[in-house]
């Protein structure tokens, strides 16, 4: 048993729903108790779909338990087929139905429906949402494209002379973070390279499209979480190679273009056009203040690894931590962590993430909506880079993460919660002015939302005082929410040292404070005096 307050991923059948809902002409019959229909509202409310997900639930109740539930399933499947006339059907069980051991696959076969029926085995007590989506997509691909697999030893027919190379775009689903816009962006990018798109799947694909997957020369994998299992199978079965680069960030997009060109057997075109603003913005002097800002990255592995790369190489941040909630992709995160010389964090317990953020004291958190709340509580600026996300991260405007426009979006999104350099500079110059003082919240944040890095709202004395009771309380992880940052601060600031600290320009003051406190802690100094302040300065400037 695992004690859980918040879960990063839903159960695997929600992953299956994400695939079914993304597609056209597919219907999913889910053996599930009354209540499991709650998952519909993820699609109708968070993603704001104007239609119901194509899912029929058997909604069995206690009085149905026994032999009745199998019959209930058959009736539901038969009715769903007659009503929706899908071109293919998925059948499976949710966690409770898994326990009562009706066999949806066998029951559906007995109905002898005139369409392909894919039976899903989704172990709800071992696996989670992303795995469920990947498995569902893989099973669909196997069932629908499988009959076209060539006999072994028959070589793949070469492309006709003059014919354009063709690829599939794999991975985007319903309820995917920016999948809609990423797809539009990458589709345009690939088409501008002169490559034909054979099929995009699962999003917008029909079962007939899935059956045509083998016609492409290679595959573009946008989200390994959902597509890599299917891509591996397509490689084995049709000899289609697939891309490994995730085109998030301008640099990765350039690499992606090169990789796609190589797989397509064409010359890599120079596509970096006038729409690529982010690299210039990052070089402009206003961005100098971003240098070395300490950033913590958490999310699904694909987005976390990509974000860390952009943060470090395109924004000039320092990655102080990286982690993921998906154990399936722990290896990727460990590799990335080694690259930045930080500890990887592989956990689906958001309290552990919170503890790590509190410990690292980053100046920016890039994460999911959970990290958004953690950061808000700890007063750290934050931007969202990965699912799970709430309704505001399914925006009306075009807002990709991938491609050159995606890089522009990332720049704006990540810099926005930080105080703009010019603004920071002006406030520094007019320090003490009644409007432009250092405690003023950045104009674009409105009100007093959080405490942006570099802005010291309460004095340190106040913070230490507030935290004193928390320090003596037992280690209560859940309670920590209410108290803000955990009591890592042991040294008290003497009033004159506090005063002296405030003479340091406030945009480096946060760093000075952190360094001094660390110094005090390391050297067992109970009260920080002016002496300690300058000792620490000398210590760290070596």
């Amino acid at each position, binding site marked *: *048993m*695992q*004690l*859980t*307050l*918040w*879960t990063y*991923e*839903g*159960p695997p*059948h*929600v992953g299956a729903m994400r695939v079914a809902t993304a597609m056209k002409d597919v219907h999913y019959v889910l053996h599930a*108790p*009354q*209540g*499991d*229909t*709650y*998952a*519909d*509202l*993820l699609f*109708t*409310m968070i993603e*704001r*779909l*104007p*239609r*119901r997900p194509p899912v*029929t*639930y*058997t*909604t*069995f*109740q*206690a009085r*149905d*338990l026994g032999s009745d539930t199998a019959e209930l399933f058959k009736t*539901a499947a038969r*009715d769903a087929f007659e*009503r929706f006339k899908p071109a293919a059907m998925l059948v499976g069980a*949710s*966690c*409770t139905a898994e*326990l*009562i051991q009706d066999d949806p696959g066998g029951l559906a076969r007995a109905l002898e429906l005139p369409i392909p029926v894919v039976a899903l085995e989704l172990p*709800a*007590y*071992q696996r*989670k949402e992303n795995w469920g989506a990947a498995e569902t997509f893989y099973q669909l691909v196997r069932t629908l494209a499988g009959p076209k697999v060539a006999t072994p030893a028959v070589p793949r027919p070469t492309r006709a002379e003059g014919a354009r190379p063709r690829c599939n775009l794999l991975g985007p689903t319903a309820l995917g973070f920016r999948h809609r816009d990423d797809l539009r962006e990458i589709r345009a990018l690939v088409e501008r390279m002169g490559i034909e798109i054979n099929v995009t799947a699962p999003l917008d694909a029909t079962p007939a499209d899935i059956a045509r997957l083998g016609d492409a020369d290679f595959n573009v994998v946008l989200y390994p979480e959902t597509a890599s299992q299917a891509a591996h199978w397509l490689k084995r079965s049709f000899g289609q190679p697939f891309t490994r680069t995730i085109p998030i960030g301008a640099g990765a997009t350039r690499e992606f273009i090169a990789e796609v060109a190589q797989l397509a057997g064409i010359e890599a075109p120079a596509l970096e056009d006038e729409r690529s603003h982010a690299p210039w913005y990052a070089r402009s002097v206003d961005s100098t203040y971003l240098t070395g800002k300490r950033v913590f990255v958490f999310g699904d592995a694909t987005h976390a690894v990509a974000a860390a790369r952009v943060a470090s190489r395109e924004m000039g941040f320092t990655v102080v931590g990286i982690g993921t909630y998906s154990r399936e992709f722990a290896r990727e995160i460990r590799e990335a962590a080694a690259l930045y010389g930080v500890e990887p964090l592989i956990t689906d317990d958001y309290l552990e993430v919170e503890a790590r953020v509190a410990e690292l004291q980053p100046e920016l958190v890039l994460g999911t909506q959970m990290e958004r*709340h953690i950061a808000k*509580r700890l007063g750290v600026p934050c931007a969202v880079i990965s699912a799970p996300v*709430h309704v505001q991260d399914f925006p009306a405007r075009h807002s990709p993460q991938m491609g050159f426009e995606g890089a522009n979006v990332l720049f704006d999104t990540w810099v926005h919660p930080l105080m703009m350099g010019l603004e920071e500079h002006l406030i520094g110059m007019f320090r003490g002015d009644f409007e432009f003082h250092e405690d003023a919240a950045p104009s674009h944040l409105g009100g007093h939302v959080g405490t942006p890095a570099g802005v010291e709202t309460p004095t340190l004395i106040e913070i230490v005082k507030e935290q004193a009771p928390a320090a003596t309380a*037992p280690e*209560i*992880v*859940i*309670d920590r*929410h*209410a108290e803000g940052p955990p009591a890592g601060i042991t040294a008290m600031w003497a009033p004159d040292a506090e005063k002296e600290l405030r003479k340091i320009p406030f945009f480096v003051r946060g760093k000075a404070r952190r360094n001094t406190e660390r110094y005090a802690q390391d050297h067992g100094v109970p009260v920080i005096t002016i002496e300690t302040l300058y000792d620490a300065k000398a210590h760290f400037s070596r």
Partner: protein
Amino acid sequence: MSPVIPIRAGSGCSDAPVRRERGQREVFCGLTGIIWLHRKIQDAFFLVVGSRTCAHLIQSAAGVMIFAEPRFATAILDERDLAGLADAQDELDRVVTRLLQRRPEIRLLFLVGSCPSEVIKLDLARAAQRLSAQFSPAVRVLNYSGSGIETTFTQGEDACLAALVPQLAAASDDAPALMVVGALADVVEDQFARLFAELGIGSVSFLPARRAARMPAISAGTRFLLAQPFLADTARALEARGARRLAAPFPLGAEGTTAWLRAAADAFGVSAARFERVTAPGRERAARALARHRLLLGGKRIFFFPDSQLEIPLARFLSRELQVELVEVGTPYLHRQHLAEELALLPEGTALSEGQHLEQQLDRCRAARPDLVVCGLGLANPLEAEGLTTKWSIELVFTPVQGYEQAGDLAELFTRPLLRREKLVA
């Protein structure tokens, strides 16, 4: 005791046939009740024993509330728990011990059963007893089931309160006392407490109370008023302890509130003059607030999908106080006895349905083209996309809607979507 509402044989919908349907049900399970119950009982913690689906459901339904130091969590069953039952009990002890160490302020812990825990027959009652003995007197541990196979949405509250009833202290004597049953918003509860005091009804308590230690006492002198229509098991448990239910419609709208208060007034011998004097200002204010909404809602046709069992009282309020026409009133479960007064007030010939066959009900709804559809969030946007105007029903459970002062707010919940549609089209 004079009857609350004169009921003539054959009047209203008392004997009306009810369409009973079985099929796919687009409803929440009882676990959802935790979301408002934990706000109400301030030192209670709700530990769901279930699957990742249960945790995901609560988090989806609770939205951002999950971050405000929630007093609910899920003990997620994994494969090891499914392998053997003895093991699961040990695991549960471990999880609860850890939880209570972390949350020393908790006084009441509910082990909430779910579909998976019910299907594998995990004995939560025994676990609750064992843990209660272990942690007493600091913490009491109770259990109830909020599983989808047994409960629909608000029935979770019924199961929770029914679990509390055997724990209520016996009152020292059988003096008449009034108990209001059903979680109400604090503001509504306070208004009712003031009204009962002005009526001169001395001993009034509310179940659930805001703190575990202040749950009301019960005796054969206890008369209880249901504030919510979904409390069948709780009422039965209260009656088993000698308390008696006061039959009344539910306190929605001016008329419902008046009749509900009158049931108590009559039982406690409050004079008609006093009742008139105390309730007149509230009734008058409610009437003024409702007049505005009647202009927009009068004559509109409304369709209720089943959700919370509040549908019939709401339909009664809308039809009688706002002249709304009822196309179909669906309810997940119809308790004939508790809703007798409500049914009598519904216009004759109202189409009533109990249970659900989602696709067939959608067909009926589309064919009827009502002006307003009350439904869950899974259906609301899809129906809007089809050109129907909807009111999402969960809000009716979370918003303070009972009593005189909220009558206008309640009406506004229904007028706002209509008004919005008008504005956006204009």
